[in-house]
């Protein structure tokens, strides 16, 4: 029967060309949508690697008078940090750079080591950062005030950068360009949002001077007034500063929402496409069944059962779908083969399978009702219609 269906479809290739094209384009769009969904889902499933609950992100912008000595600026920051840490309800305080968790800012660094180039996210964070966000060390340690006396700049890299440069080797003690010595490897942190991809990262110890951005970790039982107390403390130390306090939790929600906007847009657009394709397939099958009433009547006369007719109509649509699908799969497989967009091969493969399954399901649903109607055609009537 399969050979018969293939023959029938091949002989009608001109009539089927537009449907073939529609199914081919639909597969490619579905492949793109599923690639995006699988990619986002995989990222979502990846462990976050740090904690964001009960953390406030504080920006205290202050224009220091011109000519303020660096030591005075450093002292100002240290005094503020000490005051904040001594407050009840505050567990940790850590100075960070502008690309701290869930901020819209990004800062990258071009590093080449042993002829391997990488462009890791470059972070500035102080000695208390790992404790504040509860980052997990995989190897070595986070830097501390004792590293200030070290001849080299201590850095901590994440697992992604360690793997990129050293594979399974030990990165501890290795010196990166810029006289940066690796003293620790931290677990990957998904600090750009729950749907963001893990990328290589390097943490530099904050230099001396004034720091206007920091994270404040509150204790579990911190009073609701802690936020206003923090604000007052900052204003006492930095009168005239422009201070903004936000919950890291809220920043996370905002960042996630931003990541989902293109996904939702793509889903809406592809939803319309799928609806059009569904209506198109339904219309084509319905028209085909009505046009082939005498053929269906004949098939019943020569031995086809009602179920056999439904299966034939479904079979034709499924075979017709398989041909553009194969062409689409050949094209889609080029993405992992040619390493386009640098996504994991598994993401593309899962997307191919999902797109194919979705398309088969769609055409089956669209052909089911016309197929059942075809099965009800009465041969005695259909054979005398023309």
């Amino acid at each position, binding site marked *: 029967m399969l*050979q*018969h269906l293939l023959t*029938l479809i091949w002989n009608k290739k001109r009539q089927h060309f537009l449907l073939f094209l529609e199914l081919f384009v639909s597969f490619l769009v579905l492949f793109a949508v599923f690639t995006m969904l699988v990619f986002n889902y995989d990222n979502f499933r990846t462990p976050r690697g740090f904690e964001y609950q009960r953390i406030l992100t504080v920006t205290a912008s202050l224009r220091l008078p011109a000519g303020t000595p660096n030591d005075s600026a450093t002292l100002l920051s240290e005094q503020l940090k000490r005051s904040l840490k001594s407050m009840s309800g505050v567990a940790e305080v850590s100075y960070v750079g502008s690309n701290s968790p869930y901020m819209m800012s990004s800062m990258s660094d071009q590093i080449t080591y042993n002829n391997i180039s990488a462009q890791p996210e470059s972070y500035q964070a102080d000695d208390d950062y790992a404790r504040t966000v509860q980052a997990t060390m995989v190897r070595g340690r986070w830097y501390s005030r004792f590293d200030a006396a070290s001849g080299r700049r201590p850095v901590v890299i994440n697992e992604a950068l360690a793997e990129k440069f050293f594979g399974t080797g030990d990165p501890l003690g290795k010196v990166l360009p810029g006289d940066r010595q690796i003293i620790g490897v931290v677990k990957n942190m998904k600090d750009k949002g729950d749907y963001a991809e893990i990328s290589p990262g390097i943490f530099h110890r904050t230099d001396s001077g004034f720091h206007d951005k920091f994270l404040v970790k509150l204790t579990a039982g911190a009073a609701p007034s802690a936020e206003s107390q923090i604000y007052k403390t900052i204003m006492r130390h930095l009168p005239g500063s422009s201070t903004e306090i936000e919950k890291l939790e809220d920043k996370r929600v905002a960042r996630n929402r931003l990541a989902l906007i293109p996904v939702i847009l793509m889903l809406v657009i592809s939803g319309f496409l799928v609806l059009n394709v569904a209506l198109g397939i339904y219309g084509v099958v319905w028209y085909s069944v009505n046009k082939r009433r005498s053929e269906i009547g*004949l098939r*019943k006369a020569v*031995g086809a059962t009602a179920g056999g007719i439904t299966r034939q109509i479904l079979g034709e649509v499924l075979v017709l779908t398989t041909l553009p699908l194969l062409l689409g799969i050949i094209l889609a497989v080029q993405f992992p083969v040619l390493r386009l967009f640098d996504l994991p091969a598994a993401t593309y493969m899962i997307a191919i399978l999902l797109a194919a399954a979705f398309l088969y399901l769609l055409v089956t649903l669209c052909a089911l009702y016309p197929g059942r109607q075809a099965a009800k055609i009465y041969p005695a009537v259909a054979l005398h219609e023309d």
Partner: protein
Amino acid sequence: MIHLQQIEKVYRTDTVETQALNGINLTVEKGEFLSIMGPSGCGKSTLLNIMGLLDAPSGGELSIAGSDTRQLRDRQLAQFRNQRIGFIFQSYHLINDLRVLDNVELPLLYRKSTAKERRGLASDALGKVGLGNRMKHFPSQLSGGQKQRVAIARAIVGKPSIILADEPTGNLDSAMGNEVMEILLRLNKEDGTTIVMVTHDEQMARKTHRLVRLFDGAQVQ
């Protein structure tokens, strides 16, 4: 072979009731070539459809080769038609998108057979109707007589014991009609196939063993 007893057929709509067949009693013997004649609308095709299990009678009994057809379900009816009955229609009913050979193979698709067996049987059937050299053609490339010969090949490919022909020469000129009639007569004589033919052509009907005339759904001769 085919036994009809008090066959009735009534078509009902919301407002009208039409008695298409009224108490038909008829027996077709094995190996008989029977023709049915009558004016348009007298119930000839309805009777043939009932004999071919394409339509169910409103009343009466129909048995074919000793089987009471009232007991058969959809699957069994389909199997019965596939294995025991071959159909020939006035308008051929060939599938235009399939080549001649694929058209002839059609009944074999609904029974267990390999592609090779189907090819062999279809080629033999086409050889019998003199179209062995037209296997790769499409129906649109054939004349009316050739199309009807393809339809005959399709009817006999499954080696049925009964052929039901609904005005097989109705769309053909007399020369082509005679050709088709010769093939049917040969099938009846050489293979012993039972044939029931509906026709308007008195000359064709006279070539068969027996003639039944219908008028207003009733048998008059």
